[in-house]
C-alpha cells in the first residue's frame, strides 16, 4: 500500500459490500436538494411573524464613544428592541481563544465595522431605519494600522486594548544561530489580506424558549464553541442554548468565530420573539475575520552543493483589533516558516499584533500560505544563486522520516515530499503559445489586449506542508453516535448523529460511506448536526474526516461489536464468544455469518429485538505545548502538496494567465475520489486567487473594497483544469489511513503561481497578490519599498 499512487479519477479499493462504501466516488446525499435549490441555507429560513435583526457598525477604525442614544430608534414604529453593550447580561466579551472582543463596543471602537448596537424590527426595512436613527457620538482617534510600529515599540506604548497590543510572540531557535552556508539569499515579502468570500452570507434564525434560553439555527463551523460563547455572554447555562446547523454556504475559516450569534440570541431573549439576523455582502466582509496579512523577511544560506544550512526568518502578522485565532495562526506560521526542508539551523522571530485593522483569524491554510509564499520564493532565488534547477534544489533538501523539524519534533510518519515534487515535474506540459492560439487564450483572456509576440511563458514549482488537526497540546476530540435500527419499512438502517458542521466539504458523504463500510447497510440517515450530542470540534484544520470520521467509525465498530454479541447470544454460543464475538462471527452484506457453522442471520431478525446504539469519542495522539525557543512535539501530523504552475505573461502589460496547474498531494488514503478532487481543485483556486487578484484593501483602517465589485474572485475563465495526482501513504493513527485534504493545496498553489510569473519575466516578486504594475513598472514605482527592515532578522 505504501507506494501505491492513484489518480483521483480512478476508483480506489472498494471495501464495502454495498457500492457506496469508502473508496468510491459516492455522490453527496444533499446534492440533489442543492441542485434543485430546495436545500435550506441559514439565510433561507423564516418563521411567520419573525422579527428581522440588523447590526450597527462603527464607521471609524478607532474612536471613543462619547454617547449612544437609542431613544429615537426605540420609538420608531415596528421596532421591537435596540440593544447595546449595556444590555449584555453575561460576560461582555467573547473570543475563540481569549475573550477579548466586546459583544458591542462600549467606550471605544477598535476597527471599522465593529458592532455598536443591534436592532430587531417587524421587517428588514424598519430595522435599517432604526439603525439610522441610533445616534452615536464618536470622537475619532488616530488609527494604529502599521503592525511594524507595534513590534518596534514593543507593544506597550499606547495600548489599544487592556490586553495589550501583542497577541503573541514566538522566538524559535534551533541549532546554531551563528551557522551560515557559503551561499546566501535574503529578502522581504508582503502578503495582502485575503477574504474567505464564501457565497452564503452569515445568517441565523433564533427562537426564545420557555426556559429562558434560545434555539438557534445557524451557519457555523463549530456549534459547540458558538454555544459556549453565546451562553457565557447571555449569562445562562450552556444547556439552555441549543444550536442546530443550518445550511452553510461555504466557510473556509470565516465562520469559526462568532459574528451575529450573540447579537441574535440577545435580541430574541429581549423581545421574546423569534427572529432572523443576517448580513449582506458588505456586512459579511466587515463582519468576519480575514486571512492575516503578513510581512516576512528571510535569509536562507546553503552550501555550494545546495544543502540548506540555515534559515533566519522574521514573521509579522497583523491580527487586527481582536485576537480571534491569532495566537494559533502565529504558531503555525513560525513552525512552518522554513518550509518542508531539512534545515539544521533555524531562527524564526514571529509576532502577531493588535492594530486598528479588521480582525484576522482562520482561513484555509491557517498561517501557512503566508510563509509558504516567502520560503518558496527564497528557494527559487537560492536555486538561481547556486545555478541549480529549482526542482533539484528542493529534492535535495526535503524532509524525510527520521529528520528533525525546527521545533525539534521528529518526523515519524510518511512525508512524500520528494515523490510530490518529482510527480508534478514529470507531468506533461501544455503546448506553447503559437500563432494558432486564440487571443482569448492569451493573458487577459476575452479582453483581447495581449500580443502573442510579447507573451512569455513561465513554469514554477512550489512545495509545502501543512499540519493537520490542532496542535500545541490541545485536547481535541469528536463525538459521534451511530444507531442501527429497523426503518419504517422494516429494513435495517443506520442513523448517524454528529455535531460536525457540513460546510460543503462533504462530511455527510464520508460519514455515510464509513457506516456502510462498517455495518454493511444500504440506508444511512444523517441526523441534523446539533448540540444535543457532544462536540465534534470545528470544521477546520483539515480535521473533520480524520476526527469525526474517526468517531463515526469507532461508533459503527462498537455497534457491530454489540450486534455480533447479540447474535452470539441468540445462537446460543458460549459466553466467551458473546464477549468477543468477532472470533466466530462476521458482519457481511447485511447478514451475520458464523464462520465455522456457516449459519447466517439476517440483520433485520436481530434488530427486531430493538436497535443497537453506540456513542464514541475519538481523540488523536497528544501533542505538547510549544516550549521556550519554539521547541516541542507540537503537531499531530502533516500533509504535503506540490504544485507546478504554468503561466503566460504579457510582459508589456503585466497581464498573467494561468495556463495549467499540476498538483501532487499526499492524502493518506482516498475515501471518495470525486470529493477529494473537488477539495484539491477548490483549494488550488483559492491559492491562485491570493497569487493574482484577491485582496481586501485596507487604507488607514478603512476597508476600501467590501463588495464583489472590486474584491476580485477567480471566475471559471481564470482557473485552468487541474492535473491532479493523489499520493497515497496510509497515515498511522487515522481512520482508514486518511489525511485531511482541505488545506495543503492552498498553501502550495500561491507560491507556484508566483514562481511561474517570476520565471516568465525574470523579476523577483515580493508581494501577493501580484498586481500588473509590479510586473511592468520600475520596482520603486510599483510599490513602496517593503516596510520590513532586512536587518531586523533577529539571531546572530
Amino acid at each position, binding site marked *: 500500500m505504501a507506494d501505491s499512487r492513484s489518480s483521483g479519477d480512478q476508483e480506489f479499493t472498494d471495501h464495502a459490500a454495498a457500492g457506496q462504501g469508502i473508496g468510491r466516488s459516492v455522490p453527496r446525499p444533499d446534492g440533489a436538494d442543492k441542485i434543485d435549490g430546495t436545500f435550506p441555507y441559514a439565510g433561507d429560513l423564516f418563521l411567520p411573524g419573525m422579527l428581522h435583526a440588523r447590526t450597527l457598525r462603527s464607521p471609524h477604525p478607532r474612536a471613543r464613544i462619547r454617547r449612544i442614544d437609542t431613544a429615537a430608534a426605540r420609538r*420608531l*414604529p*415596528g421596532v421591537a428592541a435596540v440593544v447595546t453593550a449595556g444590555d449584555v447580561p453575561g460576560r461582555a466579551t467573547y473570543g475563540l481563544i481569549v475573550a477579548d472582543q466586546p459583544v458591542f463596543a462600549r467606550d471605544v471602537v477598535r476597527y471599522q465595522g465593529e458592532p455598536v448596537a443591534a436592532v430587531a424590527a*417587524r*421587517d428588514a*426595512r*424598519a430595522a435599517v*431605519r432604526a439603525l439610522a436613527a441610533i445616534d452615536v457620538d464618536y470622537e475619532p482617534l488616530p488609527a494604529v494600522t502599521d503592525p511594524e510600529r507595534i513590534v518596534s515599540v514593543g507593544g506597550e506604548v499606547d495600548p489599544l486594548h487592556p490586553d495589550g497590543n501583542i497577541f503573541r510572540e514566538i522566538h524559535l531557535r534551533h541549532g546554531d544561530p551563528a551557522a551560515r552556508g557559503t551561499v546566501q539569499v535574503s529578502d522581504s515579502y508582503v502578503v495582502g489580506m485575503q477574504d474567505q468570500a464564501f457565497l452564503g452570507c452569515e445568517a441565523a434564525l433564533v427562537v426564545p424558549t420557555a426556559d429562558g434560553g434560545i434555539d438557534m439555527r445557524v451557519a457555523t463551523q463549530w456549534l459547540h464553541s458558538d454555544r459556549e460563547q453565546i451562553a457565557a455572554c447571555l449569562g445562562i447555562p450552556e444547556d439552555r442554548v441549543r444550536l442546530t446547523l443550518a445550511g452553510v454556504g461555504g466557510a473556509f475559516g470565516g465562520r469559526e468565530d462568532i459574528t451575529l450569534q450573540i447579537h441574535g440570541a440577545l435580541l430574541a431573549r429581549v423581545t421574546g420573539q423569534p427572529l432572523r439576523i443576517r448580513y449582506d455582502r458588505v456586512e459579511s466582509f466587515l463582519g468576519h475575520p480575514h486571512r492575516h496579512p503578513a510581512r516576512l523577511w528571510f535569509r536562507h544560506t546553503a552550501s555550494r552543493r545546495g544543502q540548506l544550512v540555515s534559515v533566519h526568518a522574521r514573521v509579522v502578522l497583523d491580527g487586527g483589533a481582536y485576537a480571534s485565532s491569532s495566537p494559533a495562526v502565529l504558531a503555525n506560521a513560525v513552525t512552518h516558516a522554513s518550509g518542508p526542508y531539512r534545515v539544521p539551523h533555524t531562527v524564526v522571530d514571529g509576532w502577531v499584533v493588535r492594530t486598528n485593522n479588521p480582525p484576522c483569524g482562520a482561513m484555509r491554510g491557517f498561517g501557512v500560505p503566508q510563509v509558504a509564499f516567502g520560503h518558496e520564493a527564497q528557494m527559487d532565488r537560492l536555486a538561481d544563486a547556486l545555478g541549480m534547477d529549482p526542482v533539484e534544489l528542493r529534492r535535495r533538501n526535503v524532509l524525510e522520516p527520521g529528520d528533525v523539524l525546527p521545533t525539534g519534533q521528529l518526523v515519524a510518519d510518511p512525508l512524500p515530499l520528494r515523490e510530490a515534487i518529482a510527480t508534478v515535474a514529470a507531468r506533461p506540459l501544455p503546448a506553447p503559445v503559437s*500563432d*494558432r*492560439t*486564440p*487571443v482569448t487564450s*492569451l493573458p*487577459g*483572456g*476575452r*479582453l*483581447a*489586449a*495581449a*500580443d*502573442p509576440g510579447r507573451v512569455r511563458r513561465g513554469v514554477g514549482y512550489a512545495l509545502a506542508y501543512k499540519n493537520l488537526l490542532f496542535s500545541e497540546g490541545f485536547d481535541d476530540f469528536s463525538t459521534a453516535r451511530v444507531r442501527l435500527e429497523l426503518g419504517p419499512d422494516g429494513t435495517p438502517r443506520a442513523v448517524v448523529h454528529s455535531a460536525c458542521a457540513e460546510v460543503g466539504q462533504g462530511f455527510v458523504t464520508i460519514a455515510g460511506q464509513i457506516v456502510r463500510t462498517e455495518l454493511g447497510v444500504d440506508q444511512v440517515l444523517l441526523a441534523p448536526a446539533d448540540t444535543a450530542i457532544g462536540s465534534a470540534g470545528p470544521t477546520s484544520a483539515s480535521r473533520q474526516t480524520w476526527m469525526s470520521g474517526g468517531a463515526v467509525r469507532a461508533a459503527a465498530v462498537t455497534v457491530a461489536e454489540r450486534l455480533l454479541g447479540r447474535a452470539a447470544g441468540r445462537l446460543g454460543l458460549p459466553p466467551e464468544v458473546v464477549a468477543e464475538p468477532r472470533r466466530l462471527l462476521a458482519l457481511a452484506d447485511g447478514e451475520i455469518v458464523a464462520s465455522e457453522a456457516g449459519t447466517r442471520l439476517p440483520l433485520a431478525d436481530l434488530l427486531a429485538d430493538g436497535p443497537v446504539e453506540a456513542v464514541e469519542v475519538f481523540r488523536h495522539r497528544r501533542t505538547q505545548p510549544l516550549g521556550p525557543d519554539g521547541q516541542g512535539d507540537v503537531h499531530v501530523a502533516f500533509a504535503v502538496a506540490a504544485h507546478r504552475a504554468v503561466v503566460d505573461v504579457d510582459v*508589456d*502589460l*503585466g*497581464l498573467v*494567465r494561468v495556463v495549467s496547474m499540476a498538483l501532487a498531494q499526499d492524502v493518506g488514503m482516498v475515501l471518495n475520489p470525486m470529493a477529494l478532487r473537488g477539495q484539491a481543485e477548490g483549494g488550488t483556486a483559492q491559492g491562485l486567487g491570493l497569487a*493574482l*487578484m484577491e*485582496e481586501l*484593501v485596507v487604507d488607514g483602517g478603512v476597508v*476600501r*473594497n467590501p463588495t464583489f*465589485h*472590486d474584491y*476580485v474572485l*477567480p*471566475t471559471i*475563465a*481564470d482557473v485552468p483544469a487541474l492535473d491532479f495526482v493523489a499520493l497515497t501513504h496510509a497515515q498511522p493513527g487515522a481512520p482508514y489511513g486518511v489525511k485531511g485534504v482541505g488545506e495543503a493545496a492552498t498553501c502550495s498553489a500561491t507560491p507556484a503561481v508566483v514562481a511561474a510569473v517570476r520565471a516568465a519575466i525574470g523579476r523577483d516578486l515580493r508581494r501577493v*497578490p501580484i*498586481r*500588473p*504594475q509590479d510586473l*511592468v*513598472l520600475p520596482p520603486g*514605482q*510599483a510599490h513602496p519599498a517593503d516596510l520590513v527592515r532586512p536587518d531586523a532578522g533577529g539571531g546572530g
Partner: protein
Amino acid sequence: MIVAVPHQATDQATDQSADQSTDPAPPRTARLHRPLTVAEAVEILADGDAEILAGGTDLVPALRARQREPRRLVALRRVLELRSRGASANMLIIGAGVTYHDLTGWSLSPGLAAMARVVGSPQIRNTGTVGGALGTANPRGDLLTFLSAVGTEIVINSARGARTVDVASFLATGLAPTELVTAVRLPRPCGPQVYLKIGSRQAASAALVSCALVVDRVHERVTCAIGGIAHQPTRPAAAEEFVRQGVDWSTGTIPADVVAGFGELVAEAAGAVPDPLPDDVGVSAAYRRHAAGVLAARAVGRCLPAAAPGAIPGSAGPGSAGPGSAGRFRS
C-alpha cells in the same frame, strides 16, 4: 407569451395608514411607468422627479442600496422603437434600448461587436443597454470609450423635441432630467477598428484601462480614445495627428517607429489629462498611463499592417486582412 397583469387597485386610505404606522420614511419611489412609445416616455419625464430605467444593471442595485430614490421610474423595456438598430448609407443608428448582447454579433460594426463582447458577464450583456451606458456615463464604460473614438452623435428627446450632440459635449454637459437618449448615430466603418481592454481577471471585469482605435481610410485618419485615465475617455489629439501623417495611406501600412511613437504620445497624453482618475484599489494611475501607451500602439498595429506585412491574430477589425478589405466599407 405576455401575461396580462391587471392593475391591482388598492384602498388608498388603508394602504396609507398601514404604511405610516410601520415606516415613517418609506422609500420615495412610488410609481413605475411603462410607456410604449418615446413620445409617452418624454411626456412623463417632463413632469419631473423621474428616473429612466433601462436594463437596470446600474440602477436596480443603486435603488436597493437606496443610493438613488427617484419619485418615479420610467421603464423603457416596452418601448420597442428604442430596441432597433440599423444602417443608412453612411451611418449606423442604434436605439438606446439595444443591449450589448444585440451588438456582439453585429456584422456591420465589427469594432462595436468586439467592444460589446468584452462587457461584463453574459448576464450583464443580456441586460445592459446603450442608453444605460450613456445615462451612467461611467468613466470606464466600454461603450463610451468606443463611441468617443468613432465620433458619435447622441440623439436626445424631450417633450420639447429632439436634439443631437456629439459624444464629447454630451459627456461634458450631460442630460437634463427631462431628457431621454433615444439613439446613437455613428459613421459606418471605413476601415479596421479594434477595442482592447485590460481588466482585473480573464473575463467579467470592468475596464481598468481600455483603448478604442478606428482607422478611416476614406478620410485617411486614425482616431483613438482611452478609457480609465480621466473622468471621460481621453482623445489624444497630437498622437492621432502624428499617426495620420505617419501612415502610408496608399498601401495602408505603418512603419514600426510610427507605431512606437504613437504609443509614446498616447502615454504622454494620458499623463497630461487635467482630471486624472485616482489610484484604484488594485492598480496605480502610473500603471494605467503606461498601459494606455502599450494598448494604443498595439491597437494601431493590429489595424494597419507593418511596412513588412504580417497579419496579427486577434484583430477585431476587418482590416487585418490587408488594405483591400477596406473597400467593403466604402459607401
